[in-house]
């Protein structure tokens, strides 16, 4: 079992500690790699996770659809205590932030017409736009090096054309996957894999 101590006796107290560490580390950052790094340190300090296990979980969480940090937490919990560990980790990582967001949404619907609130939202929207831009750039960055840049450029051009043709995102992703398979060179490793 890579990543965790193999023969650890997982009792309720240990599961509680795992849940607390996931809750604390995921919900004091803005998610993503920062949370993963905090979890590596916290669990590594207790001898509950190796660096190799961390690397494996990061790689697989990036390949799992959806939010990477949640996939990372499920993988971590699964290796730790199978379904019990996976569900405890997933709940600890997702419920606090989701509750806060639902409460903020409920509050905002009552006050979003106030001028001062609209001014705050306007400024926050600029920041959010930059953060989304940063997310897109972080996804794209590993693919725009060396010879893979040409392939990434072709895929980007195809996506833009399909967006302009008003093709739905799911269909665009399917076209991209088919294109990726067609363009695959049997011998060439992907740049992204090297970076990950």
């Amino acid at each position: 079992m890579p990543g965790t101590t193999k023969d650890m006796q997982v009792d309720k107290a240990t599961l509680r500690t795992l849940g607390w560490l996931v809750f604390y580390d995921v919900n004091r950052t803005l998610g993503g790699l920062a949370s993963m790094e905090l979890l590596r340190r916290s669990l590594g300090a207790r001898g509950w996770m190796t660096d190799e296990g961390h690397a494996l979980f990061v790689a697989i969480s990036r390949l799992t659809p959806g939010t990477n940090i949640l996939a990372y937490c499920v993988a971590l919990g699964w290796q730790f205590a199978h379904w019990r560990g996976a569900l405890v980790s997933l709940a600890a990582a997702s419920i606090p932030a989701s509750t806060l967001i639902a409460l903020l949404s409920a509050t905002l619907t009552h006050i979003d017409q106030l001028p001062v609130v609209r001014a705050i939202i306007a400024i926050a929207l600029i920041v959010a736009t930059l953060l989304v831009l940063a997310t897109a750039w972080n996804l794209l960055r590993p693919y725009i090096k060396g010879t893979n840049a040409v392939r990434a450029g072709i895929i980007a051009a195809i996506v833009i054309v399909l967006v302009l043709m008003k093709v739905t995102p799911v269909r665009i992703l399917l076209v991209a996957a088919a294109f990726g398979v067609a363009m695959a060179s049997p011998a060439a490793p992907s740049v992204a894999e090297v970076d990950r």
Partner: protein
Amino acid sequence: MMIFTLYFLLLKATVTSFAGMGSLPQIRQDFVVTHGVITDEQLSQAVVIGRSAPGPVGAYVVAVGYFAGGWLGAFAAWLAMITPALLVIPLLTLLRRFLHLPRVKAAVDAVVIASAVLLLTSVFRMAMDSVEMIRRVFG
């Protein structure tokens, strides 16, 4: 909007994205363009709320769910957010077996690139919304 419909639409968006914000283009397509249950401004507000709170980046879908269906909608959105994460369990087994295949790697890479470019198109729309909102508030 029916809660099950809301769940499946959000699930479609989250399960076809490879980052927290990667679901944004599909959510806009389904919730703003096709069904019209939220506005572009509400979607932008959902992103703002999501980024204002600590925790997973993809949790902004909970705000989308709330705007589209109230508290039940928020719950359905939370379910839609966590469901794809459970796919990591079979992937732990499958990817160890198949990820070394060049065509599998290439397909995954292409999907990640495409989702990043789709996200960039959303950034363009959000930037336009920002300018418009600032013009209305401060203009």
